[in-house]
């Protein structure tokens, strides 16, 4: 795999999910950063240029759907960044909100790592 120069941000409150995704994409040569909460993700997005952000829909037990907040933030600050939303439970309403905000892809959890990588390739229009 030749994924040089792809800068990826992973946003998830589950450290085991972050560790697995980080290991997989780093092995593919992707430059990977991780964030565990909304504000950390926002600070990273302001300070870096990401090609892709993969964000879990829920980053805490609060009622706020923080994954959509990450998406909304990216669309305000970095229009060229692709956003993939990961989620275990997706209602039609949330899906429509994410589409309206400009999500590039939706992936139901759990998903095999190669499928997530294929989705990244698809939204970027190039192989990892």
């Amino acid at each position: 795999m030749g994924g040089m120069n792809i800068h990826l941000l992973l946003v998830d409150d589950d450290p085991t999910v972050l560790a697995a995704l980080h290991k997989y994409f780093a092995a593919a040569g992707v430059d990977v950063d991780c964030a565990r909460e909304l504000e950390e993700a926002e600070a990273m997005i302001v300070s870096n240029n990401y090609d892709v952000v993969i964000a879990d829909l829920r980053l805490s037990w609060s009622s706020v759907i923080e994954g959509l907040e990450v998406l909304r933030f990216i669309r305000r600050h970095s229009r060229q960044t692709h956003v993939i939303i990961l989620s275990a439970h997706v209602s039609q309403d949330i899906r429509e909100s994410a589409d309206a905000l400009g999500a590039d892809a939706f992936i139901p959890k759990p998903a095999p790592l190669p499928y997530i990588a294929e989705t990244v390739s698809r939204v970027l229009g190039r192989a990892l």
Partner: protein
Amino acid sequence: MSTLLQEILDHGGINVFYQPIFEIVDGKPVLFAVEALSRGPKGSNAEKPDVLFEYVRRKAKEVEVDRACVKAILSSMYMVARRALVSINVHALTLERDDQFTQYLTELCQLFRIPLKNVIMEIVEQQRYRNPARFFSNLDLLRKAGVRIAVDDIGLGYSNYRALVEIKPDLFKIDRYFVTGCGKNAHARAAIESIVLLADRLGGRVVAEGIESDDDLEAVTALGVRLVQGYHLALPQPVQTLNAVSPRNAQEVCE
């Protein structure tokens, strides 16, 4: 799972580097002060200062993190702070919200036997405070305690003439935008000259940040700037190195 904020506020979560500020005396740099530059926990995203402070802003935890930074700074370099000035960044918002900040600083300085007159509070992000009365009241408390006040990024954004006239800083820190490369930029030199004049009229001193060459140094000293800071003179360094720096051997740091 611990959040990044908890890791920052934990003991040892703030790592500090120190960059010397020199005074040019008879053409030679002599240590004037050290600016404390805070970083987040090693290995975390907040190890980068821009991420650290962006994150802190978004969490609205300026007060807590500023206090943690002050404690980390004074506890790590009190030996130096007893004999040299130390410049510590503080958010304008902290001065607005934390009426006990001067008391907190005073108690720490007493604990580490650091004279308050050796502390410079460098106010950052002035755009974010909304209650000027409280801000200026707390600024006044700091001054009455003997603390010196600095304003950074002068010439850019909210470090404008109005802020300088109202805050009346002891130190005017000219942003690197005007300093780096000013030897070849007459317009930048004109801006520096105007700030030197303003500082003189307002009773403050000017620090030129971003000295990155002999040219920069020569140009700013020719304009009357005596306090200088930048990679060309000394890199930010950990406290272990800093403890060896004294006004007497400041020349060695420059070499």
